[in-house]
């Protein structure tokens, strides 16, 4: 494959390449409008010959090489996306070898985030598979001198139906490579009834390697002559080194040198935080050396950040009118009439990702070029960030993607990879930068802290005639542009300006908030706080009206219909999905509510004292999820979760088993949010540091059993990695209310105990 030349057509979506003895196809994932900006295609193409850069290659021995261009962090993207191609190709999955793509624009968007890997890959993979299959079919027809229409694929072979002759893919690969690449309109796709893998799934390609310790995570990267680095970061965002002890760290056995890293230029974006690195011949020595640096810091303006005061500011802001992001009817007119109203405020703190593998990266800089090995959700962001830091062109940055020991959005931000590159350049050797757990917790890109204010006017049945909601949070945009204090369509489109309720008067607002730490995406992002407020408040209204929570929720959602969100919320982006393909369909939302309730035995089971059930529903990443949680609360206020039922409509589900696992995991991730997740700052310094003061759910605290019910659907595939998280926390808190009569409006429970 290394001597093939990629002929990139600017018009064609698919390109075929002839190389010696093998058929290779590549598919661009770049939307047409981005192509003009890509001026260096030729150069990329020449360089690509040295690296895996194509989605499928079939060797003469019948081995099918599939390229995974998305990262593996536990969601099975690396397996599930190529599996679609294998299905359409009619390839035997046992004869498939996966190759992980380096960062390369030719793959288009390689960001493994936003729960969109299968959604993006579905059509593209099928097109690539169908193209390869047609070429193999044509080659077989030519070989036998029969019409193509008489030939068809079976598992890894082409069959001539009439004469029952068979030829294997390997046998046909060389002949097929000589044929012109068929046009898209000539492709025939398998009917869904013929799918082999889609809807049945496959276990992770890396399963056995993971269980035997052979799997390659970023932490495991190794090069001969490599040294290890650990970086002392400014304790306050934007802080600068005043002075430090260069000599003392060298007293630690194994420490070789110290290297300052310059502070970032605001906005911080993905730039390293700056500080001082200690280089050593093992990781631990580098950690120990840092303790002797004795850095004196200039902390800067963010030293004023105190979470307790900031919370009050956010709450004050939420009580005042904000920027209107969606409006239906006139809530003020309804409120002015008087009558029954209800108000509530909700507050959620910052969260840290706490991936089990902390940020880590290895870099090898030589001759003006750098090769990076990193657990990254965005190898192209690594290229861009490192290029910027080193002042070299992005094409001189090669980014290999290892397995990720958890991502959750943290590893979309490659500051740690840039550190490795800077240090390798400075040291003149390969460098592996390892963040300690303390570094990870103290120097994250935190999930935004948020305050929400809600007000509703109720009719005599207890249904809202007006619903006003305001949310305030330091936006993710502050990471990329200075003075960004309002959320954008992306932030607000996550469960705020797409409230799917049938209410004649509704207004969604957003108030301003300044960031004092780095704010970033964390699994399901703004949906976490928006869903918490909306689904908690809906439940408060149900109870206030003496209504059953499920029945009330269904009435709130209203009749089956398509909601044109953009008509009332101009900035709504529908997760970049077209409204035609991915409409907000309340029929699907109602169905998951009904399914979750039915499976949980809602209203049919006799729960004991201190037990209760709660429900919440949410659409995020174009997937509809309803979760029913059962809780048991003891006299000490300790909450146990014996059972969770989650109903999911994610459209076509490629990998059901992996999907169930994602929703089981989301319940545990949600449990951490409910029980203990809180990052706080004092004088700009993050107060938490490790799993002792930033606890995440352990086995004895996690839900005992989560059952996932997948709705059979032929809608286009939507997300599965994130959508399980948002409804979990409000479902738990609604269950706690049912069990105890105590309403939780602030999380986590560790800071807002039930006994208080």
């Amino acid at each position, binding site marked *: 494959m290394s001597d093939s030349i990629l002929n990139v057509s600017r018009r064609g979506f698919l390109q075929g390449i002839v190389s010696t003895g093998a058929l290779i196809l590549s598919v661009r994932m770049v939307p047409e409008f981005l192509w003009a900006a890509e001026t260096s295609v030729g150069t990329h193409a020449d360089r690509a010959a040295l690296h895996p850069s194509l989605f499928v290659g079939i060797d003469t021995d019948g081995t099918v090489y599939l390229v995974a261009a998305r990262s*593996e*962090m*536990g*969601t099975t993207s690396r397996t599930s996306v190529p599996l679609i191609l294998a299905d359409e190709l009619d390839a035997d999955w046992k004869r498939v070898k996966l190759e992980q793509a380096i960062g390369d624009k030719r793959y288009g968007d390689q960001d493994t985030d936003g729960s969109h890997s299968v959604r993006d890959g579905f059509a593209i993979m099928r097109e690539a598979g169908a193209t390869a299959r047609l070429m193999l079919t044509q080659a077989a027809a030519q070989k036998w001198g029969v019409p193509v229409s008489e030939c068809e694929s079976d598992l890894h072979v082409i069959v001539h139906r009439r004469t029952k002759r068979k030829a294997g893919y390997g046998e046909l690969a060389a002949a097929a490579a000589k044929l012109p690449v068929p046009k898209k309109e000539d492709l025939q796709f398998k009917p869904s009834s013929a799918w082999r893998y889609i809807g049945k799934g496959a*276990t*992770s390609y*890396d*399963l*056995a390697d*993971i*269980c*035997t*310790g052979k*799997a390659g*995570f970023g*932490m495991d990267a*190794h090069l001969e002559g490599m040294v*290890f680095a650990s970086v002392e970061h400014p304790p306050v965002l934007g802080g600068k080194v005043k002075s430090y002890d260069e000599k003392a760290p060298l007293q630690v*056995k*194994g420490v070789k040198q110290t290297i300052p890293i310059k502070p970032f230029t605001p906005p911080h974006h993905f730039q390293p935080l700056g500080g001082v690195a200690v280089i050593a*011949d*093992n*990781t*631990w*020595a580098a*950690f120990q050396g840092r303790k002797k640096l004795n850095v004196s810091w200039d902390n800067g303006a963010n030293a004023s950040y105190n979470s307790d005061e900031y919370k009050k500011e956010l709450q004050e802001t939420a009580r005042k009118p904000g920027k209107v992001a969606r409006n239906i009817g006139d809530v003020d007119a309804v409120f002015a009439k008087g009558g029954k109203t209800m108000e509530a405020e909700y507050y959620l703190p910052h969260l840290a990702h*706490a*991936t*089990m*593998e*902390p940020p880590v990266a290895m870099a090898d800089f030589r001759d003006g070029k750098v090769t990076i090995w990193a657990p990254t959700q965005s190898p192209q962001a690594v290229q861009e960030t490192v290029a910027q830091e080193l002042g070299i062109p992005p094409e001189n940055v090669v980014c290999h993607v290892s*397995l*990720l*020991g*958890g*991502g*959750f959005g943290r590893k979309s931000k490659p500051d740690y990879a840039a550190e490795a590159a800077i240090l390798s350049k400075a040291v003149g050797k390969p460098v592996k930068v*390892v963040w300690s*757990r303390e570094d990870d917790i103290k120097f994250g890109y935190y999930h935004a802290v948020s305050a929400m204010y809600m007000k509703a006017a109720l009719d005599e049945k207890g249904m809202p005639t007006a619903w006003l909601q305001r949310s305030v949070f330091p936006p993710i945009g502050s990471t990329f542009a200075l003075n960004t204090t309002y959320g954008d369509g992306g932030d607000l489109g996550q469960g705020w300006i797409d409230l799917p309720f049938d209410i004649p008067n509704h207004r969604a607002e957003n108030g301003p908030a300044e960031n004092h730490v780095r704010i970033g995406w964390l699994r399901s992002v703004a949906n976490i706080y928006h869903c918490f407020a909306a689904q908690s408040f809906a439940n408060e209204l149900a109870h206030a009206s003496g209504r059953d929570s499920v029945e009330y929720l269904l009435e709130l959602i209203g009749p089956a219909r398509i909601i044109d969100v953009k008509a009332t919320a101009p900035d709504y982006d529908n997760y970049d999905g077209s409204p035609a393909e991915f409409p907000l369909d309340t029929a699907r939302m109602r169905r998951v509510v009904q399914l979750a309730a039915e499976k949980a035995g809602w209203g049919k089971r006799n729960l004991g004292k201190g037990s209760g059930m709660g429900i919440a529903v949410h659409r995020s990443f174009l997937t509809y999820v309803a979760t029913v949680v059962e809780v048991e609360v003891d006299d000490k206020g300790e909450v146990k979760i014996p059972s969770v039922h989650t109903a999911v409509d994610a459209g076509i589900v490629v990998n059901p*088993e992996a999907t169930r*696992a*994602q929703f*089981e*995991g989301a*319940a*545990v*991730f949600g*449990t951490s949010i409910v029980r203990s997740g809180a990052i706080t700052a004092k004088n700009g310094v993050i107060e938490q540091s*490790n*799993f*002792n003061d930033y606890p*995440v*759910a*352990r*086995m*004895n605290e*996690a*839900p*005992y*059993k989560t059952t996932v019910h997948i709705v059979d659907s032929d809608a286009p595939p939507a997300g599965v990695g994130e959508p399980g998280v948002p409804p979990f926390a409000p479902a738990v808190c609604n269950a706690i209310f049912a069990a105890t009569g105590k309403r939780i409006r602030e999380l986590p429970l560790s800071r807002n105990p039930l006994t208080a």
Partner: protein
Amino acid sequence: MQIKVNGVERSYDGDPNLPLLWYVRDVLGLTGTKFGCGMALCGACTVHQDGKAIRSCVTSVSAAVGKEITTIEAVSKNGLHPVQEKWIEFNVPQCGYCQTGQIMQAISLLKDKPKPSDEDIDAGMAGNICRCGTYQRIRAAIKAAAGENA
């Protein structure tokens, strides 16, 4: 000093306080044992010392002198350990980073409690964090390895 890892004894003359974790990872290149917290809070670094699970991130190399240390790479002499087989059968891992530690802990637990109750499993496994949240499958795999229906 002499350190015995996976049946092979090697001499070591570096810092005696070096945690065993970094000895097996950075010195021996046995990377199946993972770094997660450095404070015995997460269990990702679990190895066996004389057949029992310990946290290698807080065990110094010198403390391992005279002991048999086993890492995930050598936990089974032939093919897969029965616990690894169940991990695969129940499709336990998501990202997989913590799973070698989980498996080492589970093997040790099953030695102590061949038929563990739910409470035994909670007590035995609570020190091993999985941020992806695979606990339910871990529990099922342990029960299956113990010959019970999950």
